[in-house]
């Protein structure tokens, strides 16, 4: 599971969520756009959070140093 493949998963999840919301509650164009905005914002937020943490661990400058006998 590399960076791009997981990103793709996030993207697909966003698409699936917005499609299903569109199919479940279709309440006119302005509401649909509102729902779409919410889902895009949520997906982007979640993806950013994940991507930041993933990237930070990709090339570690410091590594875990175990806490030995206390």
């Amino acid at each position: 599971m590399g960076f791009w493949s997981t990103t793709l998963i996030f993207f697909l999840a966003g698409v699936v969520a917005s499609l299903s919301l569109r199919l479940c509650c279709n309440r006119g164009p302005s509401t649909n756009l509102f729902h779409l905005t919410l889902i895009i914002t949520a997906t982007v937020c979640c993806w950013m959070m994940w991507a930041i943490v993933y990237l930070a661990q990709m090339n570690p400058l410091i590594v875990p140093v175990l806490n030995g006998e206390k």
Partner: protein
Amino acid sequence: MADPSRGRSGGCCPPMDLMRSEEMQLVQVIVPIESSHLTISYLGDLGLLQFKDLNADKSPFQRTYANQIKRCGEMARKLRLFREQMTKAGISSAAMADTWTHVDFDDLEIKLGELEAELVEVNANNEKLQRTYNELLEYKLVLQKTGEFFYSAQSSATAQQREIGAHQVGIGSLESPLLEQEMSSDPSKQVKLGFMCGLVPKEKSMAFERILFRATRGNVYLKQVQIDEPVTDPVSGEKVAKNVFVVFYSGERAKIKILKICEAFGANRYPFTEDFGKQMQMTEEVSGRITELKTTIDIGLLHRDNILKNIAHQFEQWNHLVRREKSIFHTLNMLSLDVTKKCLVGEGWCPVFATSQIQDALQRATFDSNSQVGSIFQVLQTGELPPTYFQTNKFTTAFQEIVDAYGVAKYQEANPGVFTIITFPFLFAVMFGDWGHGLCLLVATLLLIIREKKLSSQKLGDIMEMTFGGRYVILMMSVFSIYTGLIYNEFFSVPFELFGPSAYACRDASCRDATTEGLIKARRTYPFGVDPKWHGTRSELPFLNSLKMKMSILLGVAQMNLGIFLSYFNAKFFGNSINIWYQFVPQLIFLNSLFGYLSLLIIVKWCTGSKADLYHVMIYMFLSPTDELGENALFPGQKMLQLVLLALALISVPWMLFPKPFLLKKQHQERHQGQAYTMLHGNDNSLEVEDNGAHDHEEFEFSEVFVHQLIHTIEFVLGAVSNTASYLRLWALSLAHSELSTVFYEKVLLLAWGFNNVFILIIGFVVFIFATIGVLLVMETLSAFLHALRLHWVEFQNKFYEGDGYKFAPFSFTLLSAEDD
């Protein structure tokens, strides 16, 4: 609305719910006076029209319906009296019946008047009876105690007399007091003493005694007996501890003095005779009357309770009706009376979509009131700023309130509420990342949501009310906390290997240098969230601090950019190209050439694994931009890029500052001139032109506009730095949260576990639970909430949000019942 290109559908994008406030219009309603009441009532049911006060210059007493309002006030007072009496009698009013029996306003007024008179009379009677009853009780006590006292005094007197007699027999006794001998031997010299008895409150008894003593210069004999149980004072009706007193005095003047003192001390006096026979008779008489009165009082109370129960049955309905009528007359008072006195003219704001509904309500009212003339509904043109109205549902309301608490959006301004729905709980969760805690919050808020119907109908406490109101906010917060908790890999601070094996392993089989050199990255990066191996290692904190700090900056820059883009949408919507070119563009450039670049550096550093010092790069980008970067270089051409970015940032500051005021001035002059010419043409729509003219004739103060722009620029430039720094609170709070939960887990739960004792384990567990709930789930939630709030109000909203609108407050009966008490 004066400018149609501004109002209708805006400039740029397809309409979105909640993004822009509802389009409003100023309307005029002309209602014939005979159907006015019904019209207002129907409009109140609809609740989509906000009336303007057209009689603002008149005092409340000068208005048309002042009298009716007074009547309503009087009725409300009566209802309050009933409610008071009902609570006193412990009768709760029945819930409002679903079926409305129609009650006429005038009938209700008469009925309430009658009921009040009856109730007052019954109460007065009862009070009188109660007072007599209490007096009799006191009297009985006085009779009892004083009787005892007199009896004992008399028996001791006779005993003494007998003793004296004995003494007299044996003369010779030297000890026999001379005086007593004299007194007893000479009864003709005895003075007739008067006496008085009654009850005095216990706390005043000492002072009472002293004053009596002083006033009569000691020529008084006072005897007090304490009563064990407090008695009900006939005057005040309160339970008071009292003393029975008997006071002996001599002379008429002393009597007058004592009477006055008794009065001053609130001491109730009661007649008493020395004669035993009469005493017995009186006691009997008093007891008889007491029982008699008791039954009378009971019957009276029963009667009163019956009246109150009848009232309670319909109380809510009446209350509702009176409140409704009052609000109707209040609204009618805002309408102005036509010169012919045959119709009322009202003006108000309503959403454009409600036009047909309002017209329909007006028609129904005309029809139902059998009015000869219909009402007139027309849209007015105005340059005034309409109120802001967002149609929210139960989910979006709480988020919109978060935004409104900062400031109500200007009419049709981009509403940060749309993004707040996601970003607010998200930023909260960044600070509250623990999926165990998130689950607890989720369960709590789900309980609220499941019992939503029941809870919304009943009255809750202050804190509970607030929590209930924000239940969907908390729901979102908990869902995002679970997500960020999974990313942080913390479940009550314990990591789990949920998404595959850790990326780190020992360098060799012996694992000798794991505590000195550390582990080595042996597999692919942990696919989701923080690697579980980090937990409890010595390098955990440096790693997490660096990660969270950088994450805060990245998230902050992203959100601030979103804010700046929203300012673009605002400018586009209002057709304000000056704001786009001389505010939005330089702002975007400035922020991104500094902090956008920093974000880029962070990401590049992560991707390449470079050891460059970002602080150094950023600081020397300003101090000596032409120097070589040396080992801190992250990518080729970085120096060139930095120079360009620095130049852009430097250019964008004057770009923000200077052009806008000058362009505004030019624009103003052009408009001014153009108008002078067009005035001559339009005779047909002179009203509108006049209206616009009045609006534009405002003096254009260049210096003021310039200073305003200066402040705005300085705020943005300094804000870019301080706001980015402000986002570091995300790091600080999330660090505090994870450290606290680690402490509770390790120092409480694991410590208790280590003792291998069930008892200690239970104590440790209980302490852990309370600490988790009290500190982490309540206090930490609050603090993370407040910090997320601040990040939205200040760092996000100051990029685009004016927030100087005013809220649409329609005349509505549903709102009326919500804000009762």
